[in-house]
């Protein structure tokens, strides 16, 4: 699995680096001035792996860092254990991209989480989370409504009962009055008085009838309400329980947060305790606080599960489901959702499969002059040179069993053989001779203490030497440069050997600072050797740690404003190097100058200046494919604007050259510039040094659409416009695909037979035109 891109936010001087591509061939160099932020990039990536940060990485606005890394599995059909539990859509999104993003975010207490991220994936997780929240919100609102309605009914029933009681009393009073009136009617001798009493009695009867009707209506209503109350009693109680459960859960979560905060406070206070007793007491408090936190968080988990199921059941009960069915469905639904990984869980799962990062910032672990075998086998890490010796034994492929060989003659012979093997391997990298042919050799011997060390007499120890033809010196007697390189070599080789079955990511801050230029180039050679299984990201100021043929490996790091202390860090990838300042690009510029002494870049003749590194890759690839002879020496400018600088330079040195420009608006400006103040750049003039590739907008347009699809983008799509337009429309990194094409062409994977007649014709036209210009340049 490879790390292909990274993005860093809110980390020291970096506000937002944007996504940055790492070199496809596993070696990426960060160049830039001091304080530009190169080390911050390496540290941020290291923090992504280890998870912890210190306060000094925080920005002044205290916004918390976020580091995102995109990884590409080696196998397109990756299936990590457990990815089956990813929510629907997440696996598909990863398979579609062929890569995944992990994002580590930190909180104010400096704890962090790793999330499986990416727009589409985040959206899937967000939808699930929103659905859960909405489900809980709706159920809680439903519970409150149920309780309210139940309460209203209870209130209404009480009021009705009271009204009925009053009406009954009123009826009783009316009944009594009627009896009285009836008696009056019977007793009355006065017809008029009798008549009045009869009329009153009629009125009372009417009232009684009305009351009886009202009472009957109210009693019916009361029966109905009581029936409903009885029916809803269960759901009302269930709702109350749900609300209570939810309240408990929230209270418990608040308790958990308090416990976490208390735990963090104690943890932070311990380093400041001076007395041993205080420290012990602090550690005991921390232990108790952790226990408490664990206890509460377990309780929270239980409450969360219970509440989630209960709220689901309630939602279904409100929709008139039967309790048993509602419980079954709710449990099933909860199990389905809870079995799906959250973005944090998915992040943890994927994180386990990414390559480990290692940050080499200090190579001080030097080979000792001597070390006891006992200390090695007992892992006595405090012994001087322990790490270097462990590395040495690992590189030499030695295990403790080796030293159990009882036959001394065989053991000595084996050691002699190993000394030769390790030395030969080391000399592959260390090309710096001490004199013309006098290379250094590493040598180790197995010895036993004699009487001069009575305490250890008879015990075995290893002794190390760094030899050349004339001298045999202990490591400590050698120069700092030799010691550094040897240590570095052992670290790297051991790192590669330890992890040979798995890819690793090696972060190195300014390797080889104290090395001679030639030795720095040897460091680059070591990188080349181990890059198969180790991705290397290093920062450097040295032109000797940059390969001019592989500028796609560069990321230029610089501050955005003039106030370098305050302004933010920005990063340019290889396709935008021309946007970086000349100070930032100084190693690259030095490289062009440094190469002069070796007449590699440029040559005295047959130089062809091209507009950028991408064009350089394509032209170099085309030359390899067509086998064009004699060879042309392509020199990339840093963007079209840099062409005239190179023209000036080569003219000044008196070197022969031609310039190849493609037919695009950027180059028309360059063309005007060349024509305005330099000789021999009228594209139509005789003796002109310029080839202006009319009708080809960029180097990739020299390929037919078919060859472009077959060898560059490797996709079956219709391309009706130019290849360069397709790249621009589809936001493809030009230098990256061009670099990979050049590698294949250089390796002979793509040959003349693999390109079609249209491409061959186009290349023929360009190379013939260049030949004419080079002949003319050489002749003038």
């Amino acid at each position: 699995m490879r790390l292909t891109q990274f993005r860093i936010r809110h980390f020291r001087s970096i506000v937002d680096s944007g996504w940055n591509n790492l070199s496809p061939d596993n070696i990426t160099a960060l160049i830039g001035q001091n304080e530009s932020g190169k080390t911050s990039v390496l540290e941020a990536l290291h923090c992504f792996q280890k998870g912890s940060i210190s306060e000094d990485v925080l920005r002044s606005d205290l916004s918390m860092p976020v580091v995102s890394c995109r990884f590409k599995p080696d196998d397109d059909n990756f299936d990590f254990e457990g990815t089956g539990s990813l929510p629907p859509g997440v696996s598909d999104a990863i398979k579609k991209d062929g890569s995944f993003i992990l994002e580590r975010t930190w909180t104010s207490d400096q704890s962090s989480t790793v999330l499986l991220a990416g727009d589409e994936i985040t959206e899937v997780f967000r939808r699930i989370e929103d659905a859960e929240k909405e489900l809980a919100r709706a159920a809680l609102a439903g519970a409150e409504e149920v309780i309210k309605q139940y309460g209203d009914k209870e209130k209404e029933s009480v009021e009705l009962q009271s009204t009925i009681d009053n009406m009954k009393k009123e009826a009783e009073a009316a009944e009594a009055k009627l009896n009285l009136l009836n008696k009056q009617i019977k007793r009355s001798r006065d017809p008029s008085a009798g008549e009045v009493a009869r009329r009153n009695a009629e009125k009372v009867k009417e009232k009684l009838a009305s009351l009886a009707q009202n009472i009957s209506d109210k009693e019916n209503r009361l029966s109905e309400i009581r029936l409903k109350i009885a029916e809803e009693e269960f759901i009302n109680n269930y709702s109350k329980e749900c609300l209570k459960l939810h309240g408990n859960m929230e209270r418990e979560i608040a308790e958990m947060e308090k416990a976490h905060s208390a735990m963090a406070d104690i943890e932070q206070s311990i380093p400041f305790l001076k007395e041993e007793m205080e420290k012990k007491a602090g550690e005991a408090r921390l232990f108790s606080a952790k226990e408490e936190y664990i206890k509460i968080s377990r309780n929270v988990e239980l409450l969360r599960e219970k509440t989630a199921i209960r709220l689901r059941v309630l939602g279904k009960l409100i929709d008139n489901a039967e309790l048993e069915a509602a419980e079954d469905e709710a449990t099933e639904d909860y199990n389905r959702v809870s079995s799906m990984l959250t973005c944090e869980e998915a992040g943890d799962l994927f994180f386990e499969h990414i390559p480990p990062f290692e940050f080499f910032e200090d190579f001080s672990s030097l080979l000792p002059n001597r070390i006891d075998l006992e200390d090695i086998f007992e892992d006595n890490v405090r012994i001087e040179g322990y790490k270097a010796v462990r590395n040495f034994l690992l590189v030499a492929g030695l295990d403790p069993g080796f030293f159990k060989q009882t036959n001394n003659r065989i053991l000595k012979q084996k050691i002699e053989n190993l000394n030769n093997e390790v030395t030969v391997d080391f000399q592959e990298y260390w090309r710096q001779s001490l004199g013309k042919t006098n290379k250094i050799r590493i040598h180790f011997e197995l010895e036993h203490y004699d009487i001069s060390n009575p305490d250890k007499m008879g015990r075995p120890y290893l002794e190390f030497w760094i030899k050349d033809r004339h001298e045999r010196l202990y490591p400590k007697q050698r120069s700092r440069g030799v010691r550094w390189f040897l240590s570095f070599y052992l670290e790297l080789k051991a790192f590669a050997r330890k992890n040979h079955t798995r890819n690793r990511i090696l972060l190195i801050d300014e390797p080889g600072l104290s090395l001679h230029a030639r030795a720095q180039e040897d460091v680059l050679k070591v990188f080349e050797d181990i890059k198969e299984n180790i991705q290397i990201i290093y920062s450097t100021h040295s032109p000797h740690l940059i390969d001019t043929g592989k500028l796609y490996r560069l990321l230029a790091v610089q501050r955005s404003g003039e106030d370098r202390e305050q302004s933010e860090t920005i990063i340019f990838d290889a396709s935008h190097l021309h946007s970086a300042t000349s100070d930032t690009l100084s190693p690259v510029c030095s490289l062009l100058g440094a190469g002069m002494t070796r007449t590699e870049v440029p040559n005295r003749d047959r130089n062809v200046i091209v507009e950028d590194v991408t064009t350089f890759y394509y032209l170099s690839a085309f030359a390899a494919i067509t086998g064009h002879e004699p060879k042309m020496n392509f020199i990339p400018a840093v963007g079209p604007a840099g062409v005239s600088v190179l023209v000036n330079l080569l003219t000044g040195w008196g070197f022969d050259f031609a310039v190849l420009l493609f037919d695009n608006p950027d180059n028309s400006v360059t063309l005007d510039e060349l024509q305005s103040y330099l000789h021999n750049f009228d594209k139509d003039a005789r003796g002109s040094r310029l080839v202006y590739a009319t009708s080809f907008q960029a180097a990739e347009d020299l390929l037919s659409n078919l060859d472009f699809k077959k060898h560059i983008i490797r996709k079956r799509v219709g391309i009706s416009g130019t290849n360069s337009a397709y790249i621009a429309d589809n936001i493809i990194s030009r230098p990256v695909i061009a670099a990979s094409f050049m590698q294949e062409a250089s390796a002979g994977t793509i040959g003349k037979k693999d390109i079609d007649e249209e491409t061959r014709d186009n290349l023929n036209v360009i190379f013939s035109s260049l030949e004419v210009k080079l002949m003319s340049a050489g002749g003038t």
Partner: protein
Amino acid sequence: MLTKKTSDTEDIYNSEIVKSLRYAGMIQRALLPSAALMDRILGEHFTLFMPKDVVSGDFYWVSRKGKCIFIVAADCTGHGVPGALMSILGISFLNEVVKTDCTNRPNRILNKLREKVMEALNQTGDLNETKDGMDLSMCIIDREKQELQFSGANNPLYLIRENELIEIKPDKMPVGVNAVDEEPFSNNIISISRNDRIYMFTDGFPDQFGGPLEKKFKYGPFKDLLLDIHQREMKQQLNILRDTIADWMGDTEQIDDILVLGFSIT
């Protein structure tokens, strides 16, 4: 009563479709080169063009650029409306590629045409996508150099010279996405001489069913027929071909669009 009403609606609907198709047919014919243009560019020639339906999936196309004459006989996937839509795409793309591209090589034009079709139809070689496209033959004649360049997408070109029929074979792939990865079309360059007869066609004629045993006409008899008639005047050749295929079909339904284009080198 209800049945009658439905039937009336269907009639109206059908008559609307027929009207639309007829109008579409008119537009399609207008996009084909006129007889006058064909006369002007090809000189002595005939065009047997028998669409199966009102609109056709076969089309022919000619153009002149400098000293070169470009001729195409094409058969789009399907016939009727789908074929006609594809033919309109084909004609538009041909116009665009030949006019905007500097190349005078038919294979490069077919390569470009295929890119345009794949792009327009979003073809990526996915197994589930439709394989719409065109089979066609294209030749470019340079009378000054007495040279004919030919590229074919599944369709060949016949050249008859001194009573001998020379078949120039096509590449076995369509203009459109193929089952396997796209390869470049090849270019065939043939010297031509006065009185050479050139025939370009689609598979409609040789694949037509008919005859006493209801079989395909086939390419062998088609070649024999052309050899028999090639020395006649072009108009006579057209009539013979039309009568022959009509006799062959008899009452059998025409199964595909038919296109045969013949011309002589003057």
